[in-house]
Each structure stands twice: as C-alpha cells, then as structure tokens.
C-alpha cells in the first residue's frame, strides 16, 4: 500500500514534469515535416517559465471565477494524470477513480474553463465556449463508449484492471479494440484541440475554439493553462497507451520492471507524438460544422467496437 502510494505520487509528478516535453516533441516533429527549422525540445518549458515571470493583466469585468479557473483546470489534469497508469500498475486510488471518474474530471475542467471564458463577457470568449461545448458534448459519449468496450473485456472500469487484463494475461487479439482505437484517436484530436478539429497555432481569432476561450488570459494564469493543455495531451497519450499498447507497464508489486517501464513509456510517447505530427501535417482543418459528422463517426465506431465484442469475443 505504501509502495503504491509512493508510486502513484511519483507517476503524477512524472506526468506533470514530462508533459511539456511531449508538447515540445510534437512541435518539433511538425516543424521538421513542414520543412521549417524546429524550436528546441524544451521550448514549452521556456514559455511556461517566461509566463510565470510576467505580471498578470486582468479584464475589468473579470470575476473570481476567471482567476480560479486556471488552478482548477490544472488540478483536474494533475488528478487525471494520477488516475492513468503510465509506468506502474499499482494505483491504490483506482477503485474510487475509474474511467468514468476520469471523463467526469475532464468535464469538470472544461465547464470551468468555458464559464471563465464567458465570465469576462467578450464576444470571443463566449464564441469559444459555445464551440467547445458543441464539440465536447459529442466527444464525451464516444469516449465513454471506448472505455466501455475495454471494460467489457476486462469486466471492470478500473484502469489498472483493464491494463492487467490486456497486457499481462495470455495474448488474445481483440477486434473490438481496433474499432475503439480509431474512435479514441478521433475523440483525442477533438478533446485536445488539434487539427483537423481545431488549430493550436492559429492567429485567426474567428476560427478558434480552445484558443478563443483563453484569449484574455496572461502570465501565471496562461502558464497554468498552457501547462494543463500539455498535461491533457500527455494524459490522453497515456490513456491510449494503457488501452491499446499496454505492454511494458510494470505489474503491481514488481519494482524491478520499473526502469524498463520508463523506457517503454518514453519510446511509446515518442512514436505517438511523431504520429500525431504526421497526421496534423497531412490534414487541413475541417469546416466547423463537419465536426459533428466527424465525432458522430467516432461514436459509431466505438459502438461498433462494443457490438464486435459481443459478436466475436463474448
């Protein structure tokens, strides 16, 4: 139990520290693929450091909600990072914090960010909040369906049990997880504000979704938001790894497997980040009203995954 607690804390801290590195890696890959000179791997850390050193500017109409939202957002993402097994499968809190709680955490963070965006009353904040809600109410059910498919296989909604079933039992091919994997990728792009749903690097305020909500933030608030965004991408990547390529995560109680687990995590994150960059470079952003079709497809694929489970695996 004590070892578990230490491991859970260690994983959370590791996620918080490594998250900007993943973002930096994705940005570096994107630059290379576009034929540009790439920013250094550590650029996101420098940005966060710079922002923490600045004085915050607040809108005149900003209420307490606007100021607290970044902290809540960051806390939610840090908690989420603790729920997902990244290197060890030893998570004592998992009976209380399962995948449904995870979806709830993401929702909580989103609601606060959207409310904060509307709090200051600018046209862009409201515009972004409205679009974010449109995207997320379509993405969340699809995400739940993906989790349910994995849960049906392992008969549990706890992530350590899912990982245990998929990685450490005898090897079985699950066709249902192939459908779920595609659906999960589609939901992840939407939830992390990536191309083709949103463009994290745009300066065109009228096209923004996530960026429109945080236009009025500066300094430490913005730093926390940027960090939380990187953390969210990290958590989603870790989720993808836990669900679809869990091999290498150390089983509960096996401390000797930890070094290898860290190496495996790094390798998978490197590959995943490069893959994300490739897909982003190849795609254009889709028209906003195509997003429901895109996420509808994700939901359908996730449901197909569940049906496949009952047909072929039950």
């Amino acid at each position, binding site marked *: 139990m004590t070892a578990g607690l230490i491991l859970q804390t260690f994983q959370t801290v590791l996620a918080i520290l490594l998250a900007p590195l993943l973002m930096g890696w994705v940005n570096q890959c*994107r630059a290379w*693929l*576009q*034929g*540009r000179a790439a920013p250094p791997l550590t650029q996101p850390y420098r940005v966060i450091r710079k922002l923490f050193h600045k004085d915050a500017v607040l809108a005149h109409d900003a209420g307490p909600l606007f100021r607290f939202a970044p902290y809540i957002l960051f806390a939610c993402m840090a908690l989420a990072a603790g729920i997902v097994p990244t290197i060890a499968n030893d998570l004592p809190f998992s009976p209380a914090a399962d995948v449904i709680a995870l979806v709830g955490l993401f929702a909580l963070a989103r609601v606060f960010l959207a409310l904060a965006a509307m709090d200051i009353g600018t*046209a*862009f904040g409201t*515009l972004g909040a409205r679009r974010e809600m449109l995207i997320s109410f379509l993405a969340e059910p699809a995400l739940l369906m993906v989790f349910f498919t994995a849960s049906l296989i392992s008969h549990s909604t706890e992530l350590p049990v899912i990982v245990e079933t998929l990685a450490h039992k005898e090897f079985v091919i699950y066709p249902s997880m192939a459908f779920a994997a595609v659906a999960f990728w589609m939901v992840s792009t939407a939830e992390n504000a990536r*191309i*083709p749903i949103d*463009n994290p*690097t*745009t*300066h*065109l*305020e*009228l*096209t923004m979704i996530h960026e429109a909500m945080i*236009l009025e933030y500066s300094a430490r608030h913005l730093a926390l938001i940027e960090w939380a965004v990187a953390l969210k991408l990290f958590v989603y990547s870790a989720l993808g790894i836990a669900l679809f390529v869990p091999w290498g995560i150390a089983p509960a109680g096996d401390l000797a497997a930890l070094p290898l687990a860290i190496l495996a995590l790094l390798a998978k994150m490197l590959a995943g980040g490069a893959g994300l960059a490739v897909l982003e*470079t190849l*795609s*254009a*952003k*889709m*028209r*906003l*009203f*195509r997003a429901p079709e895109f996420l509808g497809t994700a939901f359908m694929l996730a449901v197909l995954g569940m049906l496949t489970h009952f047909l072929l695996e039950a």
Partner: protein
Amino acid sequence: MSAFDSLNPQAIGKHLWRLRLAAAQLPGLAEAVREDGGQLVALWGSDDRHLGAGYAVHVVFLAARGLVWVSAGLAAEAPAYPDLAAVFPQAGRMQRATWDLLGIRAEGAADGRKWLRHGAWPADAHPLRKDYAGEPVRETDAYPFVRVAGDGVHEIPVGPIHAGVIEPGHFRFSIIGERVLKLEERLGYTHKGIEKRFEGMDPDTGARLAGRVSGDSHVAYAWAYCMAVEAATGAQVPERALWLRALFLEIERVANHLGDLGYLGNDVALSFGLNQFWRLKEEWLRLSEALFGHRYLFDRVVPGGVAADLVGGSALAEYCLAVADEVRELKAVYDEHAGLQDRFANTGICAPELAARLGLTGLAGRASAQAWDARVQFPQFPYDGLEVNMATHRRGDVLARAEVRFAELFESLRLIAEIIAGMQEGALRADLPQVTAPCEGIGWVEGWRGEIVVAVRLGADGRLDRVHPHDPSWRNWPLLETSTLGNIVPDFPVINKSFNLSYSGQDL
C-alpha cells in the same frame, strides 16, 4: 452606340479619354455607361479655388473605348453633385470619403455617414481643402452601424486590432448561431493623409510616395503615377524603360500570388502550403534584390523611366521555369487535398450577376466572370505586343480565386521570359520636360489586385498640385461583405484572405 459618342471625349493617351461636363449630366451619363456594360472605377474631388474655379468632382468610367476621366466643376460655396451610388453602388464609399476630405456633398445619397473620418478632425473641417489649417482633435468615433434585430441574433465586433499582425479594420458581424446574417466593415484606420502630403511635392519625390500607398502594389502604383506625370508633362519614356516596368510589374504579381497561395493554405491549417509557398516567395524576393537592388523593387520605377537595369536576363528566365515546375507540384498537392478542397469550394461565393451589378474588379472580379484585364483589353506598350492570356472563372468562390491566382502565376512566369526575350538595348530614363502651365494626366496599370489608377495635376511651378491614387480595393471591399453572407463565422478569414484587399490603399 456608346454612351460617350455624342459627348465627344478628348483622347489623352492610348485607351485614355478626358471629358468635362456639368454635374447635372453625371447621373444620365452613368446610366448610359451602365447600359453599355461599363463600370465606375473611381470617384474623387478636388479643390480648384486657387485656379479661379470652385470645386470639382472627378469620375473615372471604364467603357468599351477604355478609361474615361470625367470632371464636373462645382460651386465654391456648398459644392454638391447628384448621387451616383444609385446607379453604381461602388460609388457610395467614395462619395462619403469625398465629403469627409473635401466637403463636397453627393445630393440624394442614401448613405450619408462618414467614412474616412474617425474623429481625428472635426466634422465641419475638411483636410483636403487648400485652406485647411485645422488643429487635429481627438473625439470619440461614434459610428452608427446597421443593427440587425431578431430572436437569437447577436453581434461579434472584430478588430481593428487583430490577434495576428495584419492591417487594421473593424468587422461587425451580426450572426445567428454561427451563420452570418450581416457583415459591416468599418475602415479608415490607416488614413495617413497621403493625398494632402502629395501637395507641393516635386514629381520625383511624389513617385516615392505613390509607390508607398499600398506596399504590396509598389510597382503598379509607381508606374501608374509615372504614367500620369509623363502624360501631363509630355515626356517620352525610352522603350527599354517600359519593358523593364512591365518586367517589374510581373515580378510583383508573382511575389504576391506566391504569398497569397501560401496564406490560403495556412488559413485552413495546412501549414505545409504556407511553408512551401513562402520559401518560394522568399527566394523570389532575394532574387529581386540581387538583380535590382530591392526585394520589393521599391523606387525602381521613376518619372521618365526606371532606376535599375536587367543584367543576366537568361538566368532569370531559366529560374522562372524552375519556379513554375515547383508551383505545378504544389498545385497538385492543393488539387488533391480533399480537406483543403472542401474548405475552399463553395465558400464565400460571389455570383457573376452580383459581381457585375456591384462592380467587383481585378483578380476577384475575374474569378466571378468579370473578364476585365487592362493588360488584355487595353494594353499599353509593351503589353500590346505580348498577347496576355486572361484567367477567368465562373464559380466566384475561394477555390475560384485560388485557381485564378495559379493561372496568373503561370502566365506571369511565362510573360517574364517573353519580356526578357523582347527587350532591346537602350536608354533607361529621359528627363521630364519643363512645366510652365498647370497640366494633368492619368495613369492606369493592372496591378496584381486589380486596376490601379492615379490622376495627377501639376501646378505652373512644376510641383504636384493634386494627386489621387485609386486602389481596386475601393470596389471590392463591399463585395467581401456580400460574399460572407450565409457563410459561417470561422470561414470568414479564408474568404477575406482569398480577396486579400488593401486597407492602406483605400484608407489613403
């Protein structure tokens, strides 16, 4: 058969005509031009009181015979002329600007709001009047936007400061959900008083200023200005200088089209397109600097000729072939990218009928079946011997404007080789003849965005008395509003970029 036949305009150059008449005749003439399929290109005013007259209103029409510069003298007290916006809607903003700058009223105009005045001078002062000595003021810019009311309708004010580094302009969207019910522009934020600044300048310095009216069209403006000054003074420009001016103009067109095609890709988040086209543009600009001493060819066109010669033309012609090959490859990428095509096609449509009615011009006009290109129908030397192929399209959407850019890019690269082949050795510059009496002239050049018209009047001392540089953006900005209607808000940036209009050129 033509509106002008009975009025007997005087020829003042190739395809250029001059006509003076009474202000009361203007609406009838405008109607007749409209019926002939012509357009109103420009409208401005001048203060002629120091010449022993009152004020004057100047209108430039495009007709089958070419460009006709029509002037009508007005009274010195309470000058006014009949409204032309009812016939040519594009005249509306030009009339409003003429009121702001000169206090000449368009009688019967439906829209009497200010246009260029933002509160930097009082409502009863008019800075382009010769006796203007007003102190600048700073009053709040209370501008009555058109309100759209209804259930669920709300406004998004955008700009004049934007999230990216672009020119300032304010866009007021009235939307329901994401759908645009109305878009209203408020421009004039870059009003610099360029027309006032021209007054009293010598012609050489004036050329430098004219080229800076809108920096992306430097050559077009400088050439149009020089054409006007040379017509006014009767200067004979050496042939090689005219060949070089055409070369510069096509180089400028290539640079702008390369940049725009990259931006169009970037606006739908295809950064690959931006980086590749901008690499080509950067290499193009560096080549311009290596050959002519300036990346954007600033100050290479001067009154009487040019200030730079071409050495090593065959290398440039070969380079054009290489660029064309690369652009062909990139065009294949754009053509086959489903995501990009989905964003471009059927976005921001300007139907040919509307384009004709409201006077869409230039590149955007040609993408909506308005087949006007001064290089084709009304060529000046050396274009009269070049047989330029005009690029047109009928769809009028973002895709059509991108297609026209591609076609014009290839055509310009071909033209550059042809110009280099056709050029003869010779002098680069002739001196301007001495001016002894007031004289005037007009220049007309097909820039990359559309027709650039510059009208010049020199005083008896040989210095500039009144210069009006006219940008095609005047006519196209209102069409951007109508093309955005019914589209969704996040599609506006790509529609805007597909027009890529000049703020500075119309704010003056």
